């Protein structure tokens, strides 16, 4: 818990870093083309993807002991100068609880995944919104790669996450 507090503190301090935020090459998709400019459209897109994931999950990932997968979060980074997407991640969690018949302990088995969206390099922001804003967005091929988000999730959820471990503060 102390580690978590330290990590949180590191994210909240450093006003110097905040002052230089606008000069950094990459921004959150929420903040493109300027701070919070894409807020409403981005969160509408995230809500759409959450509903699509929920609808798809029962027939795909949400089976077996971990049948309660939830899409927690969707995030994308953008190269501000060119307006192209660098990467997008889907954060997914699921959990099971089993009773130990001998001790009575209720044993948790919770899992989280950070799965990369299979985007082509230099995908324009508008192309991303158009592709992921569609109905059946998770199962339709993405422009430039021919792979769908569903294709990527099948591998990611079976392997424990497709983003590198170093991208996670709590792997």
């Amino acid at each position: 818990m102390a580690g978590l507090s330290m990590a949180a503190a590191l994210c909240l301090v450093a006003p110097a870093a905040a002052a230089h935020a606008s000069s950094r090459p990459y921004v959150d998709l929420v903040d493109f083309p300027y701070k919070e400019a894409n807020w409403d459209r981005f969160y509408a897109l995230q809500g759409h993807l959450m509903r699509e994931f929920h609808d798809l999950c029962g027939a795909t990932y949400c089976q077996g002991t971990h049948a309660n997968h939830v899409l927690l979060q969707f995030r994308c980074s953008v190269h501000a100068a060119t307006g192209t997407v660098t990467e997008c991640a889907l954060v997914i969690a699921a959990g099971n609880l089993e009773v130990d018949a001998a001790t009575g302990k209720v044993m948790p088995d919770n899992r989280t995944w950070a799965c990369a969206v299979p985007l082509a390099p230099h995908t324009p922001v508008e192309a991303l919104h158009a592709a992921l804003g569609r109905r059946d967005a998770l199962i339709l091929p993405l422009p430039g790669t021919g792979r769908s988000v569903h294709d990527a999730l099948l591998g990611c959820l079976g392997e424990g996450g497709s983003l590198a471990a170093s991208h996670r503060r709590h792997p």
Partner: protein
Amino acid sequence: MNRFLASVALVLAAASFPAGGATAETFIDARSYPTPAAGRERFLALETRLVRGFDEVCGDTFCEGEYHNLQSLRFRCSVNAADGGVEECVWTFTGSTAQVDGSSGRIIVDARSWACPVPLAARTPLPILLQALEQDDPLHVRLPGTTTNLYEGLTGCL
């Protein structure tokens, strides 16, 4: 005399066997008590009620912190198969934050989960616990035999 002592020893052994927790089926999932057919629907209805109760309070309480998207994952209890006394209940949650590294463009993900024990009195009978929580505001109902409730238990956990 020897036969008497042997009989006493057998009786004591039989009486202490369940209390020792040595059998493989001493404890079962509350969904299966008293039988899977009778217990499952009622328990899962309670779980749905608890999730709704959590979602209603989260925005103004637990979801105001670093993890604003906290979600309930699962609620389960173990009970003593012989007498229906609850041994333990656990409620699990998950939440995340994700931030863009402005220098590299990489997305830094911090995804967590919590397993929160419910502050129950020892050997609370399952029917009593279910009845107590089958209320409109189950998170704030006093847990039988205690002076606390589910909400306070979560406050110390999340």
